[in-house]
C-alpha cells in the first residue's frame, strides 16, 4: 500500500513537468524560447515577422494567380523566362506554293512559346516575298540566305544534284547559331530542322523542349511506310530503327524526327551536314554521328508510340493556263 508521503513526492515531481510540457506545446513559446537561447529580442521580432509575412505571402500569391488567369491570348505567346528556346531551322526555295507553305507553317508556329524561326532561303538575295511574310507574322525570326550552286551544264535552272536540297541552308543556320551564341553561355535552347511542307502537331514542340542531347520520335509517311520509328527497349533506350529502307544506317531517321540541344551544337562546333558524297538517306546520319551515339538518344512521344509529325508533301500545282491568251499577271503575289 503506497504511503501518502510517497504519493505526495511523486506528484510534486511530476507536476512541474506536466505544467511545463503543456506550456511547451503552445507554438509561440517554443520558438521564442529557442530563439532566445541564441540571440536577443531582435531575432524574436524577425521570427514573428516571418510568421506574419508567410500569411501575407499567401494572399499575394492568390492575387497574382488571379491576374495570370485573366491574361488575354496574344499571338505569338509572351516570352517566358523559364522555357528553353526552340530554334526552328527551315530551308525554303522559291516556287508557286512557297508562300502558301510558309503561311500555314507560320500559323502553326505562332502557337508555340519561346520560338525562334531561322528561315534560310535558297537564293542569291533575300526575296521581298519572304521578307514581308516574316515581318507580317509577328514571329521572332532570323532571315538568312545562301544559294546552292547551279549546275550550269544541265539545261535549265537545275541545282547541283550532288548536293542534297536544303543542306547548305541548314549548315548556314548552324553556323549562324555558333556565331551568335557563346559556347559557355547558360542560355538553354533546342534546335529542330523543320521543312516547310511537313505538318507538325503542337504537342511535338513541347516534347522536344526537354531534350538534353538528342531526342527522337516517329515520323509518318516516310520510307514508303505509314511511319518510321526508332526501336525502344524496355529500359527506354533506342537500340535500332523500325524502317524498311536501309535500317542499318547509323541513324535511320528523317530530318523531322530528331531535335538537338543547342549546347551540343555549340560544343561540337565542327559538326555539319555533309555536302557531297552522301548516299541517299544518310544526310541525317552525317550530322548526328558527330554529335551523339545511339545510346544517348532520348525517345519522346510516349516511348516512340505516338505520331506527332507527318512528312506531308504538297502537289505541284498545274499551271497549264498560265501564259495563254494574256493570262498572266506577275503583279499579284501568290
Amino acid at each position: 500500500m503506497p504511503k501518502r508521503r510517497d504519493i505526495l513526492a511523486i506528484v510534486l515531481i511530476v507536476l512541474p513537468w506536466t505544467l511545463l510540457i503543456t506550456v511547451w506545446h503552445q507554438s509561440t513559446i517554443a520558438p521564442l524560447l529557442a530563439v532566445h537561447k541564441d540571440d536577443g529580442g531582435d531575432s524574436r521580432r524577425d521570427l514573428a515577422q516571418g510568421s506574419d509575412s508567410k500569411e501575407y505571402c499567401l494572399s499575394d500569391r492568390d492575387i497574382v494567380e488571379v491576374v495570370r488567369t485573366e491574361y488575354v491570348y496574344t499571338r505569338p505567346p509572351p516570352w517566358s523566362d523559364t522555357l528553353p528556346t526552340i530554334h526552328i531551322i527551315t530551308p525554303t526555295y522559291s516556287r508557286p506554293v512557297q508562300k502558301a507553305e510558309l503561311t500555314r507553317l507560320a500559323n502553326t508556329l505562332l502557337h508555340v512559346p519561346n520560338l525562334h524561326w531561322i528561315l534560310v532561303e535558297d537564293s542569291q538575295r533575300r526575296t521581298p516575298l519572304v521578307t514581308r511574310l516574316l515581318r507580317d507574322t509577328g514571329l521572332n525570326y532570323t532571315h538568312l540566305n545562301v544559294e546552292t550552286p547551279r549546275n550550269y551544264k544541265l539545261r535549265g535552272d537545275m541545282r547541283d544534284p550532288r548536293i542534297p536540297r536544303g543542306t547548305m541552308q541548314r549548315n548556314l543556320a548552324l553556323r549562324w547559331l555558333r556565331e551568335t551564341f557563346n559556347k559557355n553561355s547558360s542560355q538553354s535552347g533546342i534546335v529542330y530542322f523543320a521543312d516547310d511542307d511537313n505538318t507538325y502537331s503542337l504537342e511535338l514542340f513541347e516534347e522536344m523542349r526537354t531534350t538534353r542531347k538528342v531526342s527522337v520520335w516517329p515520323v509518318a509517311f516516310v520510307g514508303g511506310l505509314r511511319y518510321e520509328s526508332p526501336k525502344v527497349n524496355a529500359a527506354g533506350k533506342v537500340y535500332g530503327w523500325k524502317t524498311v529502307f536501309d535500317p542499318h544506317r547509323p541513324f535511320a531517321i528523317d530530318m523531322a524526327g530528331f531535335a538537338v540541344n543547342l549546347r551540343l551544337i555549340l560544343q561540337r562546333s565542327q559538326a555539319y551536314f555533309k555536302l557531297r558524297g552522301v548516299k541517299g538517306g544518310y544526310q541525317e546520319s552525317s550530322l548526328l554521328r558527330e554529335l551523339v551515339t545511339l545510346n544517348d538518344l532520348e525517345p519522346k512521344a510516349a516511348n516512340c508510340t505516338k505520331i506527332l509529325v507527318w512528312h506531308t508533301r504538297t502537289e505541284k500545282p498545274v499551271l497549264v493556263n498560265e501564259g495563254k491568251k494574256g493570262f498572266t499577271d506577275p503583279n499579284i503575289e501568290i
Partner: protein
Amino acid sequence: MKVKLKNVFVIYFLVSVIGLMYALLQLGQPCDCSQHLRSASDLMHGKDKKISQLLSEVKRLQARGKDSELEGQALPVIYAITPTYARLVQKAELVRISQTFLHVKNFHWIVVEDSPVKTQLVSELLAQSGLRFTHLHTETPKEHKLKESDPNWLKPRGVEQRNLALQWLRENRELSEEGVVYFADDDNTYSLRLFDEIRSTKRVSVWPVGLVGGLRFERPLVEKGRVVGFYTAWKPNRPFPMDMAGFAIALQLLLANREAQFDMLAERGYLESSLLQSLVSIEELEPRADNCTKVLVWHTRSEKPKMKQEELLQKQGLGSDPSIEV
C-alpha cells in the same frame, strides 16, 4: 551534509519550479511587444498597398477583357464548313488547318465526315483542338462516290456533306444571329487576313484564290467597287466561275433561302454556281481583299504518300501497328 533522498527531492522540486516560473515569465514579457507590433503593422501597411495595387490591376484587366468580350459579342461568327473523308493524310490535314483556325475569333468549325458513323480519329481530334465545333457525318451514296482509280474531278465531292451542314445551320440558327458561312476544304491553305475579309460579308463576298484553274490565281474583276467579270481561263462562261474557297455567304441569306443548296448532279465546275445562282446576282457580289488584288487563300493539294514498303510488309503479314494512329 549527508545526501538524503529527501534533500535530493527538495532540490529537484525547487529547480523545476524555478524553471517553470522562468518560462512563464518569458511568456508574459510585455516590453518587446510594442516594437514587434509596430514592425508588424509596417509590414501590414506595405502589403496592403501592394494588395490595392494588384486589385486595381485586376480591375483594369477585367475591364479590358470585358471590352474585347463585347467586341467579341458584336463580331459575327464565322462558320467554316469542312467536308472530310478518311485517307492517309486526313489527320495531318485536319491538324494543320485547326492550327490556323485556332487564331480566329468567334469561329465555329462544322466538320462533316463522309462516313456512316463518326470516326474516333475525327472525334478525338475535334475534342483536343480547342475550337468550337459541330461534328456531323453523312455517307455519299455509292453511285456518286469516286473509286480509287478515278481522277479526283470525275465526280463532285463533298456535296452531300456540305448540304448537311447547311441543313444543320438552318435547323440550329435563328435569323437574328449574325454569322458568315465559308466552305473550307481540309487541304487548302488560309491566311489569317482572309477571315477578317470573310467577317465583313453582308450578302456574298468574293476574293482571289491562288493555284487554281490551271493558273497562278483566279479572281473576280472589279471596277468601281463592283464585280464586272472574272479572270479565269477554265470554263469562264459559268454563272459563277469561282472556286469553293473564293466566296463566303452571310448566314442570314442562307436562312432566308431555305431551299438553296449544292446540286449533286451539277456538271463539272458548276457546283459553286448551283448554290450561288439562287442566292445572289453578279452585281450584288461584294469584292474583298483590296478589290480582289490580294491572294489570301491557296488551293493547295497534298500528295498521296507512297506506301510501297507498307504494302509489301502487309502482304507478308508484317504491316505497321494499326493501333498507332497516323
